[in-house]
């Protein structure tokens, strides 16, 4: 593929103490493609996403978005790039001191100087897009079920129509039906906005529903990358053991350090 990828990562490393969590990650995510990153707990998936989001500063390597290395940009330019990103956190990470509508419209109020009335109206529309009644906007996050919190988190992520969307374990803690509903909404939003997406997940059914492409992270490196539909028959020993949940294989769980 000759076209410039939306996100290009090269040689990304990050170490915490003596533990090297990312050990030279190379990854390309083409524009308007949904990339699923799988890997065991502690394999560095969340750290990878947090590096791209600018929440964690990597030790080395480059993260290019639209051909610009965001790690070398001035803070204001980094802020502008971040404005193109929406993120759905694993536990929702909704602001519990704000009502739902203000959570959804938070990015709009922060970036676009819309009035509170306009933001509230827009929040109602976005809540409808993720299958919630606009009246839910008056509730507080603590009053919502887990599935509703995920929907509100998704609504907040897509509110500013971002060019890039990130999902951290979007179906964790949900029953299978609700998980499928959330996956459907994610796919609908990503395709509808034409966004480039990266999702990290342990849920293989979810990975195949959400992803166009998939990559597996193991010991801080990308050990396989291919079509998400081939996750279950990749031919890679590491991926096969992980996706089929086999105890025996090359991946040895670190029970103690």
């Amino acid at each position, binding site marked *: 593929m000759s076209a410039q990828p939306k996100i290009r990562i090269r040689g990304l490393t990050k170490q915490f103490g003596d533990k090297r969590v990312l050990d030279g990650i190379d990854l390309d995510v083409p524009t308007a493609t949904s990339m699923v990153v799988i890997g065991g707990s502690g394999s560095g998936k969340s750290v990878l996403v947090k590096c791209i989001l600018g929440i964690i500063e990597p030790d080395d390597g480059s993260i290019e978005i639209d051909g610009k290395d965001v790690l070398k940009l001035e803070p204001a330019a980094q*802020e502008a790039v971040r404005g193109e990103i929406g993120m759905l956190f694993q536990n929702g990470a909704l602001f519990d001191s704000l009502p739902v509508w203000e959570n959804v419209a938070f990015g709009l109020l922060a970036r676009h100087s819309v009035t509170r009335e306009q933001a509230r109206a827009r929040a109602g529309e976005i809540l409808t897009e993720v299958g919630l009644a606009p009246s839910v906007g008056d509730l507080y996050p603590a009053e919502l079920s887990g599935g509703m919190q995920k929907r509100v988190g998704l609504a907040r992520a897509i509110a500013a129509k971002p060019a890039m969307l990130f999902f951290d374990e979007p179906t964790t803690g949900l029953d299978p039906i609700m998980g499928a509903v959330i996956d459907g909404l994610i796919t609908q939003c990503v395709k509808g906005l034409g966004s480039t997406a990266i999702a990290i997940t342990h849920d293989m059914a979810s990975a195949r529903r959400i992803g166009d492409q998939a990559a597996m992270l193991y010991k801080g490196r990308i050990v396989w990358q291919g079509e998400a539909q081939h996750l279950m028959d990749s031919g890679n020993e590491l991926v096969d053991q992980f996706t089929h949940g086999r105890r025996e294989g090359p991946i040895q769980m670190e029970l103690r350090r």
Partner: protein
Amino acid sequence: MTDLLAPVALTGRGFLVALGMAGSIAIFGARGISHIFRPPFYVRLFVRSFVEFAYFSLPVVAMTAIFSGMVIALQSYAGFAKYGATSAIANIVVVSVVRELAPVLAGLMVAGRVGAAMAAELGTMRVTDQIDALTTLSTNPMKYLVAPRLLAGTLALPLLVLVADILGVMGGWLVGTAKLGFNSHIYLQNTFDFLQSMDVVVSVAKAAVFGFLVALMGCYHGYNSRGGAVGVGAATTNAVVSASILILAFDYVLTELFFAR
């Protein structure tokens, strides 16, 4: 030999950790202050923090001030009666309350009430990824969470302490007139004669410093908390303990600065 040096090594390590933390707090505070003066300004959040500091802390600070003034009047009467110097009680009460008790006790009360709540709120936000979420929503967490609280603490505590100054003196007056038999007019005359404007200025200045310290410790420990519920609990405890110690330490420094001859 190694065993003999172990306590020295332990002391050295402790000192280095303390030094590192002091530096970390200083940088955190400087970043917070710099965001107070740079837009965007979150006025609603400042007002909310100010109300939390000033309005909702008023009852506990008022009760503390009144009872402190009453106790000072009683204690000084018990001591001064032996020397026939009971006429100085109004003076003792006003100086004790305005110079020391009102700012220190209000600071400690607010550290326990608002500083703890601040650390718990920010700590919970940290461990539930809400602070990371702010970053992804083009919002600087230092500007959104820390700067309004630092400003609110610095401005709110002086107001509280002015109220505490008045109520503390009233507590002394109440005991002096109702229990100890002082003439109300003379008691108040003594109070106003002895009180200097510098005492009030220092009281307010101390309060501003203590308010900043309470907010800084609440924000610092909450913002940097780790490890779930246990981490949030530890952050809350650390915020209150460190703010209390710093209030007492800075009280000495400020007293030395303003009153030492």
